[in-house]
């Protein structure tokens, strides 16, 4: 494992190759799969994670989210960063 990543506005995140964020059709739910782990992210986390693609910065993700949820960027920025930070500390996201 690598050192803990500190996420800022410019950080570009992706899923490590052994972490799969996917929609399970028969169960009708989004899940994160990792070694010996199965996590069901809540609705907001799902919307955030759908935007993680190894190209968008945290700032870009927030811009997209602000359009989807019609909320000002500065209002959601901190919450998004906290959530991404937590997911990266669990090993589900890397730089």
């Amino acid at each position, binding site marked *: *494992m690598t050192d803990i990543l500190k996420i800022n506005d410019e950080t570009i995140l992706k899923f490590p190759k052994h972490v799969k964020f996917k929609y399970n059709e028969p169960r009708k739910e989004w899940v994160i*799969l990792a*070694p010996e782990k199965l996590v069901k992210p809540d609705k907001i986390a799902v919307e955030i994670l759908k935007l993680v693609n190894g190209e968008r910065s945290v700032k870009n993700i927030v811009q997209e989210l602000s359009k989807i949820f019609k909320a000002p960027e500065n209002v959601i920025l901190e919450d998004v960063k906290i959530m991404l930070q937590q997911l990266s500390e669990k090993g589900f996201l890397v730089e």
Partner: protein
Amino acid sequence: MTNNNGNGLKKASEHGIPAPLALLAELSHRCPLQCPYCSNPVQLEKKTAELTTDEWRSVIDQAVDMGMHQIHLSGGEPTVRHDLEDIVEHCSKKGLYSNLITSGVLLNPDRVKKLEKLGLEHVQISFQDTENENADRIGGYKGGHVKKLEVAKWVREVEIPLTCNCVVHRQNIDNLENFINMALELDAERVEIAQVQYYGWALKNRAAFIPTPEQLDHATEIVEKARVDLKGKIVIDYVIPDYYAKHPKNCMGGWGRQFLNLNPKGDVLPCHAAETIPHLKFDNVRERSLKWIWENSEAFNLYRGTDWMPEPCKSCDRKEIDWGGCRCQAMALTGDARNTDPACSISPLHNEIFSMAAKEAKSAPPEFIYRRYGVRFNSPI
């Protein structure tokens, strides 16, 4: 209660139980190692009875259609199968998250690379000790430990996440810190420190393995300290022998609630030890669909939910937490699978069994009975 094939048992859907989360696929019972605590049944399946590649592909298709998330490719030793690559390829094609649980000793660098390319997501390698000689003695396989260390490196070279599965007991528990350090040196993401669980082969060898309460307390202290010191570096999962726990483990997350297990010939079991319960009748994927079996199989429905429970489980406020503990352990130690798991401190048999095990822990360990085909036992335990 609704009628189910005339046996009067409620089905999975009538318990409100959704499709299972994961599948443990025992591809073969064949294994070059002979660990005396092996979780396989004492009656091992022969190669000729094993499911074919196409039959496993069909199982994978069905598992995905049901909504299962993960498959654990296990054994015996799953790498004895020359079609392991085909099975892994099919899992990734279908989007089933694959985990290989192996002793490692039959792998080579090319095969590891190939499995990675085909989409294998995670590898778990078993370790018997951290010292060559003792590790090879426990596994009954000369040169095994050195090979495992090599295999672990090959796994990390192709960047597959690695878990070190360390089975600990009184004959290696003093090396607990070394196990954790070994996992760190091998760049493992997780290390499982699992005390031997006493079913099948392990139960026959219990006197050789069971630690004293003092050894166990010391081990727990080491693990707790390491978890703090190594936070963010490695995940440490720890399983204590449930003889020394206050509450029984909620085995498999409850009987027939979250997981299913296929043995090499395609019998579908609620857990890998379920064949130790002699009256259970298993359904087979050669005759029934996986979905039908999960919903209807008597072996699953017999101990689902809480209706089957006798006292003291029936009136216990933890009955939907522990689900009565482990049916196989109840069978092995009390002779009746419906009884409260004697690992539970409320079980009327707890003290008797605990004191017998504690006495074994303080006596000199007997010789191992190694896991082999065709071993005859003089008397059942």
